[in-house]
């Protein structure tokens, strides 16, 4: 008897759970009429690229607070406040899809993310099918904006490669060695454009060494580069790889300067001895010591709130929220299709520079370089 009773109880509890989850689905429909606009954020909060995701999230949080404190966004004839739910995608394509589904179940009406290219590429198809605005703050692979609903705030990989190649030319580097991650679209995309542009400029790639995700031993690649007459090493990779490469190169007695991609941002926090990266130059649209008023006010708020100096990812996250707010205001409705078409009509004066968007989803904005000097980032 008691066993049967237990069964009935467990069956009942399962049914009640199911009912509860269904009513959860039901409330999602009505959320469109409320006065909050829900933004889903996706990025790595843990794992080897965690610094990017956390920065984007923190930056976006500040922007949301500012906008809500100022009364929210005027959408048509009503004021709406913004709400952000940020899910961890661990920079992994599989987990990105799960995280995307999680924010969609929550009722997201626009997506900021993903933060890394490979994760972006994994969710773009789903966002297109769902017809929702996807604005990646930092997914730079060219495929991220393939669909009409995809926009990006940062430079594309090919553009980064070309810009860095032109810088190398300007600095007089003719013989260049490359170490890139050939299991990452981001790294490979930059490398290919870089190599092409260097050759166009009359330079020579004396070594092009590959590694794969998760590699932490670069001694072999570096030893090979050491045997060439390279004048500079170009490392289009994330800060974690950059920290291994610069540290191990110093141990091998390599004193060549480095050029890097925007993934280098955050490298100093990872280095136990910052002097190994001295003189490295990488691309970044944001510089925390900028004297611009909007920038310094953002930096101050960020430092107060998170007791850390914001990097370009934090700035990208911050600007992304303002871009979505501007598109929402321009559209005058929470209808996703209208917000997406409003994206090409707005110009946002953000802390990563003034930005507008092309129909292809690419940003129009200028490039800036950061140099590591005396163990600190400085504008170049």
């Amino acid at each position: 008897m008691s066993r049967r009773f237990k069964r009935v109880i467990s069956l009942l509890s399962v049914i009640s759970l199911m009912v509860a989850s269904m009513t959860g689905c039901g409330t999602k429909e009505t959320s469109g009429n409320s006065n909050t606009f829900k933004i889903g954020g996706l990025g790595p909060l843990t794992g080897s690229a965690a610094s990017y995701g956390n920065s984007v999230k923190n930056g976006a949080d500040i922007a949301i607070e500012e906008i809500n404190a100022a009364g929210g966004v005027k959408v048509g004839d009503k004021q709406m406040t913004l709400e952000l739910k940020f899910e961890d995608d661990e920079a992994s394509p599989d987990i990105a899809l799960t995280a995307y589904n999680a924010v969609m179940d929550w009722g997201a009406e626009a997506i900021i993310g993903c933060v890394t290219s490979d994760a972006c590429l994994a969710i773009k198809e789903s966002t297109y099918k769902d017809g929702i605005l996807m604005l990646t703050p930092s997914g730079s692979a060219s495929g991220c904006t393939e669909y009409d609903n995809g926009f990006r705030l940062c430079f594309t990989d090919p553009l980064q490669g070309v810009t860095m190649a032109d810088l190398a030319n300007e600095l007089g580097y003719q013989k260049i060695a490359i170490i890139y991650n050939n299991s990452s679209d981001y790294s490979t995309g930059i490398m290919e454009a870089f190599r092409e542009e260097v050759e166009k400029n009359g330079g020579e790639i004396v070594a092009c060494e590959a590694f794969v995700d998760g590699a932490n031993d670069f001694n072999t690649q570096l030893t090979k580069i050491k045997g060439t007459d390279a004048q500079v090493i170009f490392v289009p990779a994330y800060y974690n790889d950059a920290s291994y490469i610069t540290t191990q190169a110093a141990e091998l007695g390599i004193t060549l300067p480095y050029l890097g991609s925007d993934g280098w941002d955050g490298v100093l926090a990872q280095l136990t001895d910052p002097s190994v990266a001295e003189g490295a130059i990488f691309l970044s649209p944001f510089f925390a010591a900028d004297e611009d008023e909007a920038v310094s006010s953002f930096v101050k708020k960020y430092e107060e709130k998170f007791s850390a100096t914001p990097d370009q990812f934090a700035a990208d996250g911050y600007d992304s929220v303002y871009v979505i707010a501007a598109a929402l205001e321009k559209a005058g409705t929470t209808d996703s299709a209208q917000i997406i078409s409003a994206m090409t009509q707005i110009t946002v004066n953000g802390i990563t520079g003034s930005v507008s968007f092309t129909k292809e989803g690419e940003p129009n904005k200028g490039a800036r370089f950061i140099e590591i000097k005396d163990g600190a980032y400085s504008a170049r």
Partner: protein
Amino acid sequence: MESVIEQIINGLRTGSIYALIALGYTMVYGIAKMINFAHGDIIMVGAYSLYVFISLLHIPVILSILLSILVCALLGITMEKVAYKPLRNAPPLAVLITAIGMSFLLQSLALLIFKANPIPFKSIIKLAPVKIGSITIAGISIITFLVTTLIMIFLTLFIRYTKAGRAMRAVSEDRQAAELMGIDVNRTISMVFAIGSALGAVAGILYVCQYQTLQPTLGALPGIKAFVAAVFGGIGSVPGAMLGGILLGVIESISKAYISSELADAIVFSVLVLVLLLKPSGLLGKNRIEKV
């Protein structure tokens, strides 16, 4: 030419770390007839212990190293007592699954305690690179060679000439017979786990000084490579593990440098398959005929 020599030095260094880890696999296999898949994670525990003692508790370096080794040795003994001893007469598959479970347990614990974010850790080895002609040898390489060579010499002497070493050899030869001769099998097995894990701790310390970053999964890949090295050299054979580890490191480094960095792992494993085809018991493994 210099670059070939430097690549070989690189290979020797990673190879010596593999060899240290492989010794743990091979000794445990020799005596307990099981593959301790959690051995890779002992390396991780060793690395994290060093970090805790030095960076968080500010204990002097030498003492921290000894404490980390002690932590791992105790962990090895506990692991054997709790997880493997009750299964001593169970089918090998059950022990294997338990070992994999232990590995996940240790990794998840590290993930819970230290989170997934990589932690930068400043190397405790501050030896300047040595230049011989145009060849530069990093300080860490020299220390790694010295430490591994010394350990291997001591280990060989220990196994060959001490009473405890003789007991280890006897138990690995025939457990029942050893027991009849009055050898305390349980104590011998515990000792082997302690020594294997202590070697794992040394490998972990060298590893973290080399790469200067801590992650909960840091032991996984070197663990697998070292397992391959142990099989390569002949599992159960102590000199085999040393040879296997060092050869594996050198083959890996040379193929990465001169064939393809993407194919390096594939080449390493192809060499393993080839060796096992020609010599199924590994390079120095004994070919024992099973009596039915």
